[in-house]
């Protein structure tokens, strides 16, 4: 495979900034883990286990309405940079790519539906990971697609299922429903007003868990958080999803309230922070990814608060995806050193901001609107 033409939306449908609250909620992901009887789970699977799992899955996919006309991408056949691009587009996990520097295992694959925003990873930690990744807050919609595909595959494949423990998974933290739903949120208001700790504690009391972007710390990566259900056993899928949705909506309401407080109590400081970040991104000649994310977070807040009305959330999502290392290398057509990568990143950001966001019309708005946080 040399390009992404065969993959619907090039695997980028989740960043289109559609769906409810798409300025705050980047995307919703629902995934289920399923395993086949008679084979060791991913980490202990042998070559013939993996090959048999892929063969059986491929047969069942041909009889699945959702998958039939889709595209199956076998990881060992994909060039190294393309594999990293799939990962950067959040379509495959790091796990599926195999050890750093080594080739992926035979039998590892991902199958994309041609008609629905759903895909299946094959021979990851679990034999099958069915996932739907969509833009904005659309938990129920993502679940319906996954649920339907699960029914289709379950009619063909002998899933490992236990009357007490439910769907059996490699890791006992996934057993039962095998379902993890996560909502990827941008919460600068809660971070800047120091309310984030309380909000996250509230989530944890609801049996939800959170992590930063790419598993790193929270504030350092642009105030982005992924909120998901921790528990997978002892509750129905619908109850788990309802709890998640209710909590996410509460967090959104608190985030909006925090933003309101910021504008009321510290309008000049807030506007200054946003415009400085915009200016920096608009003119910088070198940007590390972490630095970009920090400024992009402020600019995203500005767009959401309608302080930068010429810019669209879609453009910002695009910047997040296309400034990752493998994407920059793909655009350059060659490998890049870290220094070159930072320069290419800055150049890409300048180009997008110059062509997709004319914010000049409203410059000086802070001066027109006397600051309330100064004597």
């Amino acid at each position, binding site marked *: 495979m040399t390009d992404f033409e065969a993959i619907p939306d090039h695997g980028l449908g989740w960043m289109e900034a559609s769906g409810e609250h798409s300025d705050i909620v980047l995307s919703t992901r629902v995934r289920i883990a399923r395993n086949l009887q008679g084979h060791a789970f991913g980490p202990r699977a042998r070559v013939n286990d993996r090959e048999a799992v892929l063969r059986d899955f491929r047969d069942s996919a041909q009889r699945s309405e959702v998958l039939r006309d889709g595209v199956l991408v076998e990881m060992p056949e994909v060039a190294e940079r393309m594999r990293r691009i799939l990962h950067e587009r959040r379509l495959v996990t790091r796990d599926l790519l195999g050890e750093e520097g080594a080739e992926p295992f035979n039998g590892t694959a991902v199958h994309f539906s041609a008609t629905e925003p759903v895909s299946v990873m094959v021979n990851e930690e679990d034999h099958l990971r069915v996932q739907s990744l969509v833009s904005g807050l659309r938990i129920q919609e993502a679940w319906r697609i996954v649920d339907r595909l699960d029914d289709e595959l379950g009619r063909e494949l002998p899933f490992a299922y*236990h009357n007490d423990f439910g769907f059996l998974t490699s890791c006992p933290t996934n*057993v039962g429903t095998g379902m993890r739903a996560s909502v990827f949120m941008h919460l600068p208001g809660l971070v800047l007003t120091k309310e984030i700790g309380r909000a996250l504690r509230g989530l944890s009391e609801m049996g939800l868990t959170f992590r930063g972007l790419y598993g790193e710390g929270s504030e350092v990566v642009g105030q982005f958080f992924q909120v998901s259900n921790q528990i997978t056993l002892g509750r129905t899928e*619908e109850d788990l999803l309802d709890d998640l949705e209710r909590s996410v909506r509460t967090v959104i309401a608190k985030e909006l309230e925090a933003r309101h407080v910021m504008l009321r109590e510290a309008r000049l400081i807030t506007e200054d922070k946003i415009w400085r970040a915009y200016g920096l991104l608009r003119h910088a000649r070198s940007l590390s990814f972490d630095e970009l994310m920090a400024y992009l977070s402020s600019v995203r807040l500005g767009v959401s608060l309608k302080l930068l009305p010429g810019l669209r959330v879609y453009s910002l999502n695009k910047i997040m995806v296309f400034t990752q290392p493998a994407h920059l290398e793909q655009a350059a057509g060659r490998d890049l050193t870290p220094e070159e990568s930072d320069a290419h990143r800055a150049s890409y950001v300048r180009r997008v901001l110059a062509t997709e966001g004319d914010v000049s019309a409203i410059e000086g708005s802070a001066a027109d609107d006397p600051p309330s946080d100064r004597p």
Partner: protein
Amino acid sequence: MSNMSCEKCGSTDAVVHLTQIVNNHMSTHHLCQSCAAEKGLDAGPNVGDIPLLDVIKQIADDPAVDTHWGGGECSFCGLTHADFRKTGRLGCPQCYESFAAELPDLLRRVHRATKHVGKVYLPPDPTASDMEKRLDGLRRRLDRAIRSEDFERAAEIRDEIRSMEPA
């Protein structure tokens, strides 16, 4: 962002920043790549890893818990308790039978439950009992869809129930 040093070995490059909430107490840890890997934390996608390994360790170290972590192995894949304690991963579906005595305690600590109440799986060649269990599950989902006034969903489930019931 200024460079932060690893809190475990003191090297200057903490690259993994872990925020955890345990018993309502939030803590943040900064670790270098190798110390993080040692903790089983490699900035990967699995949220449950660290708490799970902690839970496994707690159980193994808890003299009040009458389990036999440390002996025995899975009859199908050969996984031992030691393997499980190291990785937090079971080896195959049969492991859930092989370690059936110990698992409920672990599951209770992780999920606060030991029994699946979600979707009921209908295998490719279902027995009458499989069909009955699936129908029970579908009826529960139907009730729920009606209660939450999701009538579109309710209609779909009703269709599926009808297709399974003998004519």
